[in-house]
């Protein structure tokens, strides 16, 4: 036996194997010894059955001896040739027990011996009748026990006779048996039942209990309905546990539904906010353009007949009295809007931070509609979609304005204005690129805009 040169990989049943038709393909390969070792390996790996096969095959040379049989001579007499096979395949009819009439009981040795003794002098009782009576007694007793609710699924304690003699007599009147004969039969049967401790008709005998380990007792029932053990099967069990589980599932689903509804609302609101912002931007853009035109027209002493303008003029009458203070305030407020330079022109009320309703009353507080316009830097670059810087938020992420230099003046050091540009970048403008002036910036407020000097001419145009 030579050494194995290699170890074959385990066989993959899904892999297609070539079918080799000729033995020669084997012979002119490698070394003969590897074939031999291979065959030995296969033989060794084959399961025990192979060995038995080899052992048994030696024995089958001379046949496996088996017990014998002979022909029964009374067969032809006992079994009558009355079977007519129908052309179609036979179908089962219900089990005979269900059909009721068939006498399932057969007399056993005891019964026959007793009957022989009973009929010793003369034939009082034919065997078939005796058989029928015992059968019916058994069935009646079973029914009596059913009505009393004492039927056990498995054999536990001794099974008593509940059928009384009188009940039996009454039930079996139709059989027309002599009273005395019937009495004998009943006593015999009852006594037999008391010895057996269980019904004499096999079909009515309960099976042994599941935990009975006596190997001579057979046909135990399975512990519970043995169905295919799939998970689906287990889920289908109809008990309190699965009811609770289903309840929980329902609660979970309701919660999920609520969550999703809330989610939908949130997303809708976000969408509305977005849409509002977009329209806001659009309107601002639109009115930025229109503002320029309007300013040009306002610079002229004459009042061109702009319908808008006249509108303003008329409504402005109410706003004659105004001083800087509220303006200033409002400027501050409007600063915000300034960064979105195109406020709403046609209804200046909209831009007023304080409510719309009571305009006529609180004139003072109202800004001069045009004044904010002048506050706007007309050459200020269009800063679309920019957002103001919020100092607190920036500080929270670690972005703080540089401290003022120790030597310089308070307002002088860093003059720059910040804004959030496109893409979320923070942009600091130190130099107004258009005015070519430094951006004055003082204090901590990055939002601060020095008020632009108002020319008296502007103001006077209102009067």
């Amino acid at each position, binding site marked *: 036996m030579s050494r194995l040169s290699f170890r*074959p990989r385990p*066989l993959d*049943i*899904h*892999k*297609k*194997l070539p*079918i*080799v*038709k000729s*033995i020669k*393909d*084997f012979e002119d*390969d490698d070394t003969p010894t590897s074939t031999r070792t*291979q065959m030995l390996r*296969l033989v060794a*790996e*084959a*399961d*025990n*059955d*192979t060995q038995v*096969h080899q052992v*048994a*095959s030696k024995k*089958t040379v001379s046949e*496996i*001896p*088996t*017990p014998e*049989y002979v*022909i*029964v001579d009374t*067969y032809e007499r006992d*079994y009558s*040739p*009355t*079977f007519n096979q129908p052309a179609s*395949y*036979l*179908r*089962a009819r*219900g*089990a*005979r*027990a269900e059909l009721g009439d068939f*006498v399932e009981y*057969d007399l*056993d040795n005891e019964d*026959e011996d007793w009957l022989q003794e009973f009929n010793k002098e003369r034939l009082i009782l034919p*065997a078939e009748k005796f*058989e029928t009576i015992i059968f019916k007694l058994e069935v009646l007793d079973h029914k009596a026990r059913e009505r009393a609710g004492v039927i056990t699924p498995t054999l536990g304690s001794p099974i008593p006779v509940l059928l009384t003699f009188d009940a039996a007599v009454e039930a079996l009147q139709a059989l027309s048996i002599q009273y005395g004969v019937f009495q004998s039969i009943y006593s015999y049967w009852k006594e037999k039942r008391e010895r057996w401790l269980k019904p004499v008709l096999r079909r009515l005998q309960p*099976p042994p209990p599941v935990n009975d380990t006596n*190997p*001579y*007792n057979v*046909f*135990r*029932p399975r512990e519970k309905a043995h*169905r295919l053990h799939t998970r689906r099967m287990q889920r289908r069990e109809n008990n309190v546990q699965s009811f609770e589980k289903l309840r929980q599932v329902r609660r979970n689903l309701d919660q999920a539904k609520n969550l999703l509804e809330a989610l939908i609302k949130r997303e809708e609101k976000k969408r509305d906010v977005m849409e509002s912002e977009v329209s806001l931007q659009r309107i601002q853009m639109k009115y930025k353009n229109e503002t320029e035109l309007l300013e040009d027209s306002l610079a002229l002493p004459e009042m061109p007949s702009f319908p808008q303008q006249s509108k303003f003029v008329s409504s402005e009458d109410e706003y004659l009295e105004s001083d800087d203070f509220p303006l200033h305030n409002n400027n501050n407020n409007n600063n915000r809007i300034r960064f979105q330079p195109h406020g709403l022109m046609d209804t200046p009320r909209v831009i007023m931070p304080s409510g719309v309703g009571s305009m006529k009353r609180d004139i003072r507080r109202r800004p001069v509609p045009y004044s904010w316009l002048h506050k706007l830097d007309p050459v200020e670059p269009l800063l679309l979609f920019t957002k103001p810087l919020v100092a607190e938020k920036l500080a929270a992420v670690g972005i703080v304005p540089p401290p003022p230099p120790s030597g310089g003046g308070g307002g002088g050091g860093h003059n720059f204005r910040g804004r959030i540009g496109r893409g979320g970048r923070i942009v600091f403008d130190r130099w107004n690129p258009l005015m070519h002036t430094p951006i004055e910036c003082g204090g901590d407020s990055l939002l601060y805009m020095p008020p632009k000097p108002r020319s008296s001419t502007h103001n006077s145009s209102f009067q």
Partner: protein
Amino acid sequence: MQPLEVGTRVLCRWRDGKHHPVKVIERRRLHTGGPNDYEYYVHYTEFNRRLDEWVRLEQLDLDSVENDVDEKVEDKVTGLKMTRHQKRKIDETHVEGHEELDAASLREHEEFTKVKNIATIELGRYEIETWYFSPFPPEYNDSLNLYFCEFCLTFMKRKEQLQRHMKKCDLKHPPGDEIYRSGTLSMFEVDGKKNKVYGQNLCYLAKLFLDHKTLYYDVDLFLFYVLCECDDRGCHMVGYFSKEKHSEESYNLACILTLPPYQRKGYGKFLIAFSYELSKKEGKVGTPERPLSDLGLLSYRGYWTRVLLDILKKHKGNISIKELSDMTAIRAEDILATLQALELIQYRKGQHVICADPKVLDRHLKAAGRGGLEVDVSKLIWTPYKEQG
């Protein structure tokens, strides 16, 4: 003289007139004769337990009573050293076909089945010697002979009882649906739940000829496929196989038996083939329940060999074990075991190949024996079992 002890090994004259070694399993006093007159239940150590029987003292060669010396021997096959008794036990286990049972189950099994209770039965045309113990209800244990109604399988202790029964029993075939008929051969499907008494009777009967069959649990969960030869007296059972309604291990057959008078006629092979035809119709791969008896294993090896080699002879190109399994409904492991046992799978140049030289295949096919009666699938009218309600 002193009666022999249980466990004695001695030579005994068998039905062939020759003496064979036996072991005394049981003994009982004779009704007639003196206090030392016994008869002995012996096991022929060369043969299967089904040949155990009660013998008289005169059949035993008392000079051959063994001295119980347990000397050391060497087993030639494995080279192991052991005592003579141990070696004998191993050899006898091979004969019994009990390898698949572990030692504890084997002991337990042998303990309560060691003595046959019923010696012969009458079933239809034949009176048959039994092979093994069967757990009939205790009231039947005093009877050496039982008489079975051929059609409903009710069993009785006296011939007159059977004759009386035959006058009222109108059943002429198994109580189920006929699912196959070809010529005089018919197959009936009986549901153990619907015909419980019949199912139990069949199990009692079959156990007389099957060693490892267990009747522990009830017949509700089984289907019985009863094979019959039909004539003007009715449909006579020649064999059957049982099948679980739901098998977790994909067994397509639980127990299989051809009644002794009908053996060696091809019915067993028919039953095996039929079980695979049902599997094919179900679209499932199947395998017989283990352990298989010695006769059963031979039959299955023959069937697998014939089916697989027939395919290999005709097939062109490559084929995988899985494909063979899909074509035949034979489980892949069984295919592999069969091909390996026949040395048809070789490892060449880094891969497995199947050797299908026609001469080699024909040699194996011849050794496997002829096929049994063929199953004509066109005559099978059947739908797979479905649980109701």
